[in-house]
């Protein structure tokens, strides 16, 4: 078993206004060996890297603890023709040190620093206000612009948020990770309001493309611990990568997963193919010259992203779905960012729209709550 590489920055930059924030205090205590600089505004560090060809790599060595002044809860962007469920994502921080070659954040973020929005009191205040209407239901993802747990040993942030979500009946917090860093969460009173999700891939892809993440065995062992602690868990077979032995490898992955995990306590399994912004090709070539994932049969989708040629995606998803359903016909599977054509071909049904898929997922989450 190989755990994820622990994050150790070369420097911590703290905005003076959040010097006393509890998360800041925790980070400084847990990374007491790292030099710290207090600044009125962390942007000067970020701007100093602009134009630097190595900005992505250098930026990850600086941890910025900042006072976030905007919204913490943001709606997922709507993508015409590609269906996905509706959710909001929690803007608790940005960027990640785990170095997946295909990570979209490399092209998406304009700030290369690993950034934590440490004014969590403001975050909780905003969530409390938003969750006030009992007739609304909130699906909140914490794994959109960072791995949910990669920084947990340093921040203790999810440890703080899980009990907070436990107090709200109309919300569910989703964590998404490629690590095994769940130990601090196991004793929490989560009341089934948190789904801990793992992005899974074959050992070959983990080794070649998810460079600093936990290996498969480590992730699955963590998923088992979380399930045993009563958490609902989710899996994301995403991004599926097409290569010569993909069938055998993904089938083995599914078998291995469910030899450890009880499928009846799995909230959902998402299935999605590798997709990336076209500008990622040159970034991957420059940062990860050994990676071959950009040389598959990726075409330009109607959303402008590169993704596998449709019949190829449909074939992969259909097989993956059938292997999952062989494990348990009751497993809730869905496609991530896919066209109605692919839904139909692979899963045999098409949700009417994003809201319909969201409703199905809400029903699933509610039905499994203890």
């Amino acid at each position, binding site marked *: 078993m190989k755990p994820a590489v622990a994050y150790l920055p070369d420097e911590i930059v703290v905005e003076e206004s959040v010097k006393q924030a509890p998360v800041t205090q925790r980070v400084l205590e847990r990374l007491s060996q790292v030099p710290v600089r207090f600044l009125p505004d962390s942007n000067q560090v970020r701007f100093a890297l602009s134009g630097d060809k190595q900005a992505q790599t250098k930026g990850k060595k600086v941890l910025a603890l900042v006072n976030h002044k905007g919204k913490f809860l943001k709606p997922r962007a709507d993508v015409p*023709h590609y269906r996905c469920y509706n959710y909001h994502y929690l803007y608790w921080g940005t960027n990640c040190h785990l170095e997946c070659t295909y990570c979209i954040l490399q092209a998406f973020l304009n700030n290369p620093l690993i950034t934590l929005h440490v004014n969590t009191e403001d975050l909780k205040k905003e969530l409390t206000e938003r969750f006030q209407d009992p007739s609304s239901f909130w699906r909140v993802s914490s794994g959109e612009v960072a791995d949910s747990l990669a920084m947990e040993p340093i921040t203790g942030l999810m440890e703080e948020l899980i009990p907070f979500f436990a107090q709200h009946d109309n919300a569910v917090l989703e964590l998404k990770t490629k690590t095994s860093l769940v130990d601090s969460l196991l004793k929490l009173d989560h009341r089934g309001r948190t789904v801990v999700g793992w992005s899974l891939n074959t050992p070959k892809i983990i080794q070649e493309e998810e460079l600093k993440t936990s290996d498969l065995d480590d992730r699955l062992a963590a998923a088992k611990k979380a399930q045993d602690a009563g958490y609902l868990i989710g899996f994301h077979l995403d991004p599926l990568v097409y290569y010569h032995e993909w069938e055998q490898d993904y089938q083995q992955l599914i078998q291995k997963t469910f030899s450890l995990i009880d499928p009846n306590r799995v909230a959902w399994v998402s299935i999605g193919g590798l997709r990336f912004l076209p500008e990622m090709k040159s970034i991957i070539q420059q940062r990860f010259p050994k990676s*071959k994932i*950009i*040389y598959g*049969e990726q*075409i*330009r*989708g*109607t959303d402008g992203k590169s993704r596998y*040629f*449709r*019949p*190829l995606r449909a074939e992969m998803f259909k097989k993956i779905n059938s292997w999952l359903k062989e494990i348990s016909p009751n497993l809730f599977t869905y496609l991530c960012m896919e*066209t109605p*054509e692919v839904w139909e071909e692979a899963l045999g049904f098409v949700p009417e729209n994003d809201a319909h898929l969201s409703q199905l997922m809400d029903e699933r989450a509610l039905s499994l709550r203890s």
Partner: protein
Amino acid sequence: MKINEIADQLKASVSLKREFKEALSDCMKRDDATEESILTQIELEALLEHNDLSRAQKCQELRWRLHKLRYPKLAEAEQRFQQAKKKLCLPESIHINPSDFFEKKEIKIEIKSRSQKEFKEQINKLKTIQNEIDDLFV
């Protein structure tokens, strides 16, 4: 790269030259292959020596061969679509095209009519092919 010389020799446009280079370099990286071996695979030598093809035709053929090597399944679908379309023996005034890269499972039929008579003929033609059109949906 040898492909630069070949593209110059064939008087390929700048964008075509870029396309050749990208497809070639992607295949080399994907297959851990040399430029030489990729060009051998696509039988470049024989193509260049072909006496019956013009420079422009050689350019288009080279483009297709590289495309086929870079995107084998897509190229196969494109070929199947073209063959199925050819079988329909459509007049020049009726165009049938798939969506870009077959991303949507739909075809677009475009009819250019200059008279009611021509329009009626075109509709009749479309009626005669209605049972064969299934092959066009990739």
